[in-house]
């Protein structure tokens, strides 16, 4: 059970992990399995370790007026998080510091993360895509972005472990067609999710559509995305041993969280825990008996202390609060042989920068990436059962790679089963419009609502963004949160390389809508947050919550913050883990890849903890003497 009692200042943990999201939970579980004593610090509350607590999130979401990504989670000024309703258009040169994430511009980014037990996997959608092999070498192949210090082939075994841990449902043949190599005979833990009726209707209209990009021809095919969501277990998995899906997290036994029921609100919270969230891994870690995992919630890491003689991290400071409504807190120190920052690609560099540790590469917080999302929406000619199934089952992945990436961003498209919600056209909005503008009531209102909602089609075009050192997270002494911790300051812009992909996506969307007989209702207004002009046409670009790149991995201390094991070049007992380490994100949602990276890093951590025992204790003593 989570506890907010202060840790014993005399304990020297094998590892302290900051953050209980997917990265922190995976590392905690791996280290615990090897017999180590681990402390996990979570800044947010931990009410979801029980079914009752999880259901509190659910009722808060049901009751919320704004159904944004963080609506299920309580407002908490002591460990605040970005929320969509707090993002405004920016005036040139004027930072918006009205909410937790200070937006320095020029582009206002509407992306979020969640600071609660389980982290952002509480609200994530659950897509679990592998990156393409070419995504690991965009610099050498296309002259764009950065190469990774490791190849797809080196990460592949860890991808397999991540797919087991997260419980991925997918069809291997479908993925192999995209140019992703799998080991012979590999199948995913669970079968691919069945296509929604909407997917099938879209596929019937557009499968086989030819697209010519930079002189090469591509053919589109609607296919299901790999998803970390419980589906039909694959009997052939693991050499015929099959796979047992992981259900709900609970302190007592419940039959919940089994097969996906298609409740259509995966984001911001799966009502039945069919979707993977890090709490499932954390529960295993806490129950483990080989090592030991302690968990402190409402404990905000506030400073990383380095021994300037050895360069090693000596201790970590955190602020513990009893009541999210009050800034009253106490400050504590925790010591360990190894420190792992897994707070996410905004909070991890924020903590490092707030600790005065910008990395000798000066790249801490830089190279911030996210995906640029362009939404296009319209009405299908007839009812297609919109609002059934997961938020998204299928989409178009055929333009994720290719030689055209020399000149423009790759892109992919999601077919949204939840209609126009993301574009602001939720069923509630539709009903209000029918009542207020159309004076509809009774049977007319019912028919009108069904007619409008069940024909909705929304395509979300995910466009890649390359690392750019000027897109960054910084801190600024003027901006502090309730506990006095420095708030993250975001500087962000979208390069023409990405905008060219955006324009291409818009033009392809027009063609596809024509083929489908879709009435195009796409509407971008200059007053919308995220409005940009490119070559004479306006677009509205939204964020994808895929924060990454801010403690980039590379081959030398000069070109990167961490090495291929996500270990800090500057501090040998410090690992910065998560999507912040990724030098590129292609057109892949980041979670599966960061999970694979964390599993890889955990192996290095284990080696290091085993090899270094005596030396580390010496260093820790030095550290405490200086503190």
């Amino acid at each position, binding site marked *: 059970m989570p506890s907010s009692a202060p840790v014993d200042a005399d304990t020297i943990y094998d590892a302290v992990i900051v953050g209980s999201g997917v990265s922190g939970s995976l590392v905690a579980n791996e280290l615990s399995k090897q017999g180590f004593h681990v402390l996990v610090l979570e800044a947010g509350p931990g009410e979801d370790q029980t079914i*009752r607590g999880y259901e509190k999130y659910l009722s808060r979401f049901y009751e919320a007026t704004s159904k944004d990504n963080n609506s299920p989670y309580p407002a908490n000024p002591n460990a605040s998080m970005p929320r969509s309703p707090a993002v405004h258009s920016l005036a040139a040169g004027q930072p918006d510091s009205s909410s937790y994430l200070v937006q320095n511009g020029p582009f206002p980014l509407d992306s979020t993360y969640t600071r609660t037990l389980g982290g952002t996997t509480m609200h994530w959608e659950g897509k679990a895509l592998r990156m393409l092999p070419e995504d690991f070498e965009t610099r050498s192949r296309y002259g764009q972005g950065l190469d990774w210090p490791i190849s797809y082939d080196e990460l592949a075994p860890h991808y397999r472990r991540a797919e087991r841990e997260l419980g991925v449902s997918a069809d291997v043949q479908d993925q192999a067609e995209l140019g992703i190599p799998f080991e012979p005979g590999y199948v995913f833990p669970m079968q691919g999710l069945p296509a929604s009726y909407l997917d099938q209707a879209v596929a019937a209209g557009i499968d086989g559509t030819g697209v010519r990009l930079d002189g090469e021809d591509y053919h589109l095919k609607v296919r299901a995305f790999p998803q970390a969501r419980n589906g039909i*277990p694959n*009997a052939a998995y693991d050499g015929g041993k*099959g796979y047992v899906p992981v259900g709900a997290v*609970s*302190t*007592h036994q*419940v039959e*919940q969280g*089994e097969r996906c029921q298609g409740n259509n609100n995966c984001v911001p919270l799966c009502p039945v825990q069919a979707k993977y969230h890090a709490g499932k891994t954390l529960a295993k870690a806490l129950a483990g008996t080989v090592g030991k995992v302690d968990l402190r919630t409402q404990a905000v890491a506030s400073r990383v202390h380095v021994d300037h003689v050895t360069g090693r991290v000596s201790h970590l400071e955190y602020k513990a609060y009893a009541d999210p409504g009050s800034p009253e807190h106490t400050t504590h120190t925790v010591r360990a042989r190894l420190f792992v920052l897994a707070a996410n690609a905004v909070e991890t560099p924020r903590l490092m920068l707030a600790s005065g540790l910008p990395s000798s590469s000066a790249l801490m917080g830089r190279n911030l990436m996210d995906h640029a999302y362009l939404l296009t929406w319209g009405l299908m000619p007839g009812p297609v059962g919109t609002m059934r199934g997961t938020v998204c089952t299928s989409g178009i992945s055929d333009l994720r790679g290719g030689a055209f990436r020399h000149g423009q961003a790759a892109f992919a498209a999601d077919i949204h089963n939840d209609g126009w919600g993301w574009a602001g056209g939720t069923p509630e909005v539709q009903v209000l419009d029918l009542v207020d503008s159309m004076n509809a009531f009774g049977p007319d209102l019912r028919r009108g609502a069904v007619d409008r909602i069940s024909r909705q089609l929304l395509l979300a075009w995910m466009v890649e963004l390359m690392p750019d050192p000027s897109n960054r997270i910084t801190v600024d002494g003027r901006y502090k949160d309730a506990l006095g911790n420095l708030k993250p300051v975001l500087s962000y812009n979208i390069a023409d390389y990405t905008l060219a992909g955006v324009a291409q996506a818009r033009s392809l969307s027009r063609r596809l809508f024509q083929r489908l007989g879709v009435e195009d209702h796409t509407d971008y207004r200059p007053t919308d947050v995220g409005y940009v002009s490119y070559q004479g046409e306006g677009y509205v670009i939204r964020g994808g919550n895929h924060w990454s790149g801010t403690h980039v991995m590379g081959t030398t201390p000069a070109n990167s913050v961490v090495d291929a094991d996500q270990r800090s070049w500057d501090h040998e007992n410090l690992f910065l883990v998560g999507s912040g380490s990724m030098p590129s994100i292609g057109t892949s949602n980041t979670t599966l890849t960061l999970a694979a990276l964390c599993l890889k890093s955990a192996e290095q951590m284990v080696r290091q903890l085993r090899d270094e025992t005596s030396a580390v204790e010496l260093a820790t003593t030095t550290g405490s003497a200086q503190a």
Partner: protein
Amino acid sequence: MTLSRITTKADLQDYLHAAMQLEHATIPPYLTALYSIHPGTNSDAFHVIRVVAVEEMLHLTLAANMLNAVGGEPDMTRAGFVPRYPAYLPDGEADFEVSLERFSPTAIGTFLKIERPAQAPSEEMRVLRRPKPRAAIPAVHPDGDDGLHFWSIGEFYAEIARGIQHLHDQGVDLFTGDPSRQVTPELYYSGGGEVIPVKDLASALAAVELISEQGEGLTGSIYDEEGELSHYFRFQQLTLGRYYQAGDVANSPTGPALEVDWDAVYPLLTNATITDFPAGSEVRAAAEAFNAGYAEFLSLVNQAFTGQPDLLIPAVGEMFALRDQVGRLVRNPAPGRPGVNAAPTFDMPETTR
């Protein structure tokens, strides 16, 4: 149903028909109690009842697999398959009846009887629970009926296991059913144990053991081999106000406290029948629609059990529809009965085929 000891393959098939009927007979009472709970309240109780109801569905499926394996023909659409409540359980437990009623201490008392351990966990309880001495297990009912009556579901399944082993030892060719009729884990799973395709002696006995252990803890332990708490002790948590945790012994849970709000419940009409609701009323129409929907649902699942197992996938969607139909009943007052709400009646047409 009259049962004698299993001496032939036909006897075994009769038992397995009874097993399907028995497993199903527990589901309407559990669902009625479950859906009588005000939405969003009584999370602990809701999940305890839900777990058991879902596992009874697993047991029903396992019984169908066994019946199919030994060449029987499941039939959930025959007249009388769904009992009229209040009802005695089809395994012959004659000392209590099962009602369709709201979540209440009385209902949980009945559920504890349904799931009571095969052998009472202590001598003291044995005495308390058995008002008069019975003959050796399985017992002959004292009223002179020559059929077999079982003290518990666990003992009923013990006879099935004994029968399977006996017939096998006699060299009877038991597993003659069409293997393609088996429901496999791809089509059905729940957290509390996987569905077992039955094809031989070992898998048949494994299926029996799973049912017995989940329900009643045949071994006398509160947890089964998979570390899962048995149904009896799950329900008992609601009366004791505390969860069991690993290491606990019977009757003394030491886990987290558990909260029950007996008042956050719709006041359902107990053992409602269709004629309790005035003809022409909206409630009557909703009750009839539910019954028709339930009959169609049983027919769909029966098709899944008789050669088209893939139909279990669309059946899941139908279960959601049934839940919504129950919602329409329990949230509305029963006409002419102040302070009492409508309830699903589970009246089936004579034959639903």
